[in-house]
């Protein structure tokens, strides 16, 4: 017979409070969905911070209102948060132990050296349709893409300023993770490839909003061989 019990009964949230809580939870979920679909509107560390923050809010709302810890004995909150804190500590320890505390999912050395192409893995038994854009690619194309990537991350020095998820992390210029998609073309009626070519040959022709003009070197093409330039364009077009 404690006051805690009596209080708990008196101070359950009302129906309307529960409805408001549910609506907040729905709203946060919709915002989360909007942030990442159909493409990530934010990337990198900010994305992780924002999404983790939003879900932490949902988490707290559920335990304090739906599980009414807010209205219950304080000891129960400490017991639960204690377990949660231990879980966090174990998780962080595991992540740091395995060197996984990074913002991008990059395969580590072993995975890189032992990689197996995805589509050829499934192409033979016909278990699945090849993904659009990845279908009948010849060995020559693949070579070209690899060369283009080498130019991007090497001779062309593009990587220093431009981010492509999983390839580079530059933050000076616009991100190019989805540069090959129609959405990335800022000039009406222009093909993705033509847009990319123009942006390399004459960076001033269109400057992405939010970025200063004159930063991207205008002589980039002259520093590359024709082969290298074509490979770089092919690589960028493939960034869907």
């Amino acid at each position, binding site marked *: *017979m404690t006051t805690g019990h*009596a209080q708990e009964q008196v101070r359950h949230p009302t129906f309307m409070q*529960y409805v408001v*809580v*549910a609506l907040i939870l729905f709203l946060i*979920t919709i915002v*989360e*969905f909007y942030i*990442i*679909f159909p493409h990530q509107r934010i990337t990198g560390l900010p994305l992780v911070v924002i999404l*983790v923050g939003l*879900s932490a809010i*949902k*988490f707290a709302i*559920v335990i304090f209102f739906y*599980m009414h810890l807010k209205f219950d004995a304080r*000891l*129960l909150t400490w*017991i*639960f948060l204690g*377990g949660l804190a*231990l*879980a966090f500590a*174990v*998780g*962080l320890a*595991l*992540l740091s132990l*395995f060197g*996984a505390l990074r913002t991008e*999912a*990059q*395969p*580590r050395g072993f*995975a*890189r050296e*032992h*990689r197996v*192409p*995805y*589509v050829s*893995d*499934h192409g033979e038994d016909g*278990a*699945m349709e*090849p*993904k*659009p*854009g*990845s*279908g009948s*690619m010849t060995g020559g194309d693949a*070579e070209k*893409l*690899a060369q283009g990537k080498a130019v991007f991350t090497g001779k062309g020095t593009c990587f220093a300023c431009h981010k492509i*998820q*999983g*390839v580079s992390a530059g933050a000076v210029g616009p991100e190019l*993770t989805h540069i090959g998609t129609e959405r990335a073309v800022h000039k009406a009626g222009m093909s993705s490839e033509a847009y990319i070519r123009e942006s390399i040959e004459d960076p001033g022709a269109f400057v992405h909003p939010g970025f200063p003009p004159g930063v991207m070197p205008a002589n980039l093409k002259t520093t590359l061989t024709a082969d290298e330039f074509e490979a770089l364009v092919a690589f960028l077009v493939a960034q*869907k």
Partner: protein
Amino acid sequence: MAHAETAHHAEATTTGLNHRKLLMWIFLGSDCMLFGALIATYMVYRGQSIVGPYPVDILNIPVTTISTFVLLCSSFAMVQALAATNRNNQRGIKIWLLATALLGFTFLGFQVYEFYTFSVVEGLFIGTNLFGSTFFTLTGFHGAHVTLGVVWLVSLFIVAFKGRLGPSTALDVELAGLYWHFVDIVWIVIFTLVYLIGGYDAGPVAAGVLTGPIPSVLPV
């Protein structure tokens, strides 16, 4: 507004708290550690698969968002079931308990659909790659929790159907509710990490490391 325990069989405990409720919270606290370990393992092996399919190839974010909504709705139905029990609203108890169980069952249906699509259709099994191993272990354990929750809710519904639930047995509903909401918050975390943040994870191929086909960014 007399509580079950105070009205009928008041217990003097050293903590002043009901034993069953205390035990439930201790269980939930320790269950956090189970899921913490599973989630951390997923994150450790994230992006380490050397064969496909990778998350970006098969995760269906819109469908999973809908199933997340279903689970959120079931949590709302659960609090209504408890409120109805406290008010001794017999009809409300049955309706809301049934609604909670059905929504939980719907969530399981989504998961069965997802597992079927991933494995039989797309070729991702638990032994295919690190993504498959960690993904199926994590979501499978969560699904098992949901399944147990549905069984619990259906049992409660049967008890309610016999008219045996009311303010004096409200703790029975409350404990099931605590467990059910816990399952919901675990899903909030899984959904955020696996689907929202990790949904675009690709393998070494798409990362451009390999001279091979580049998968599309979005599963269609």
